[in-house]
């Protein structure tokens, strides 16, 4: 049992590290600029990498050519092989003279693999920033509610209960819809962070309040109070540190929920503008069912989201809490 838990936690940690590192190192790992359009290669399949040309050769690719635009058929231009260029132009690998499309191309002929890497930067940063804000807000409000009691406690507890029962997706949608549809990517980022934080705090506040309520009666708090610690000091120095384990877990659990919320919002057109590469906007291409059946690489961002959620679930499950997030 314990061995399995350890293995699961290790697997989760490895996956998460892999995702985070590939997002951070995106400019170096991506073979192409995420915005660059290869006009002829709309919906092109992944480029095949060859290592055999009259004997073993350094890895090379053939440029893809359109055979039929309507049937989306491509073939390889055998006359112009391009040897992969390693460590040039600040990239790990690129196609040299031909576009290297490891996961094919999207509806504008952009490199899906590079966009998944760059998309992870926005999707993960947004989720992390929103989770941090939500945890901060929840800790402060929950701490106040638990420490002060009275009407403040009542107001905070009632509003968190109300927010907890509402179906998150609809509230997010309504709040987002109340602002202009077309916004710059940076504005959307700030806006979504605020909305997610405003919806994520209640569950944190509830737990924090319960812990603070219990800790408040402990001897060490009484001792601190007896030597004249102010309420603010009591709360910040003595009570909130007791919640740090809980807060860390909550933050970990909020990240996948927010990654998903961004994806859903962008998918329906309420999130980032479609030109910005995020995992959500990339799924827009997957909205066309008949297309996706032939072009499974368009689901690559969905796989990235799945890996993120799975990695965090493995990590959290292994620390002893069930990975049951019914909300979100």
């Amino acid at each position: 049992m314990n061995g399995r838990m350890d293995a699961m936690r290790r697997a989760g940690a490895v996956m998460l590290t892999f995702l985070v590192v590939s997002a951070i190192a995106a400019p170096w790992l991506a073979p192409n600029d995420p915005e660059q359009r290869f006009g002829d290669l709309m919906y092109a399949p992944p480029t095949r990498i060859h290592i055999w040309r009259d004997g073993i050769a350094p890895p090379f690719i053939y440029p893809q050519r359109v055979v039929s635009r309507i049937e989306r058929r491509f073939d390889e231009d055998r006359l112009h092989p391009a040897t992969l260029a390693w460590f040039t132009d600040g990239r790990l690998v690129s196609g040299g003279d031909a576009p290297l499309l490891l996961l094919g191309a999207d509806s504008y002929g952009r490199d899906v693999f590079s966009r998944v890497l760059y998309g992870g930067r926005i999707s993960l940063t947004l989720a992390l920033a929103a989770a941090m804000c939500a945890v901060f807000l929840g800790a402060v409000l929950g701490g106040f509610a638990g420490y002060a009691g009275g009407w403040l406690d009542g107001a905070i507890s009632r509003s968190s209960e109300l927010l907890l029962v509402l179906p998150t997706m609809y509230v997010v949608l309504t709040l987002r819809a109340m602002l202009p549809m077309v916004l710059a990517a940076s504005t959307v980022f700030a806006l979504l962070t605020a909305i997610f934080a405003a919806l994520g705090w209640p569950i944190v506040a509830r737990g924090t309040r319960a812990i603070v309520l219990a800790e408040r009666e402990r001897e060490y708090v009484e001792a601190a109070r007896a030597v004249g610690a102010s309420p603010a000091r009591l709360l910040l120095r003595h009570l909130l540190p007791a919640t740090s384990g809980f807060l860390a877990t909550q933050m970990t659990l909020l990240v996948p929920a927010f990654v998903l919320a961004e994806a859903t919002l962008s998918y329906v057109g309420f999130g980032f503008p479609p030109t910005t590469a995020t995992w959500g906007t990339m799924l827009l291409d997957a909205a066309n069912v008949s297309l996706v059946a032939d072009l499974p690489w368009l689901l690559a961002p969905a796989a990235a989201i799945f890996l993120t959620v799975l990695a965090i679930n493995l990590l959290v499950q292994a620390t002893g809490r069930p990975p049951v997030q019914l909300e979100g």
Partner: protein
Amino acid sequence: MVRFLARRLVFCAVLVVIAASGALLLTRLAPGDLTTNLGPLATARQIADARARFSLDRSIAAQLGDWAASAVRFDFGESFLYQRPVAPLVLQAAGNTAVLAIVALALATIAGIGLGIVTGSRRGVLAGLIRTGSMAAVSLPSLLTSLALLFVAARTGWFPVGGMSSIDAALSGQRWADIASHLPLPAIALALPVAAAFERLQSAALAEQIHQPFVLAAAARGVPARRLVLRHAWPASVKAVTAVYGLAVGSLLSGSFAVEFVTAWPGLGRLTYEALRARDIYLVAGCAAVGAAVLSLGMLLGDVLLALSDPRVRDAR
């Protein structure tokens, strides 16, 4: 029990009122209004007419008051988008969502509890496989499951792709069979993550109960293993699942938005989306009211189930 139910009902009523009036207020306060749908060629007069028809030229308080006064008589105003009264529109959409959610909940309950009993009481390859599968499924939110199932359907042709009915079937009079053939895809997509969550909860709770003294005592009396699990340990553990039923209804509603959108199921999620997009003020409010009512019903159902499965809850209230 009566007092508890009464308190619950009051809470539900408050929820409906807050959701509906909040939605109305937010739509009213948002920049732009439904007249932008008239397009750039609309004359000043057309715009003024539309604003007058939807009370957008009056104060927010007056509009909210009027709307609330007629809403208690089940008159929810008119939709700009559909040029029809809101009530039948939202009721039909809510019905479609309810069908989807109920089927999904039933699927999730049967699969989740059934598989949870297997993994909670056994070791071996089968239990390990189920556990791995549900670990993966719990990480597949309904946005991803519906995309994945749609992909499978488009490739294999096992299910009709998207929508709730097809035109030729509607004409040939086989309406219900047709809807039933469209239902599995979105229902499974919606049920999968919830089923996995139920499986995890049931499995952990059962594994815990099996080591309790009363189960050991029954085993010592010679009760066979199967009966030990199903009649002794399971009834004591099932409240782990029923306790989250109320929450599950909320997450099904949340999840159904993505599913409806991806699979083109004409439910409340899609309607709300269209209404919000067009700033169709009464339709937004109507969707919020009905959505909150559906949610309340679901939570009540959850409470009843919890009371049925846990005698302590039943007697305490």
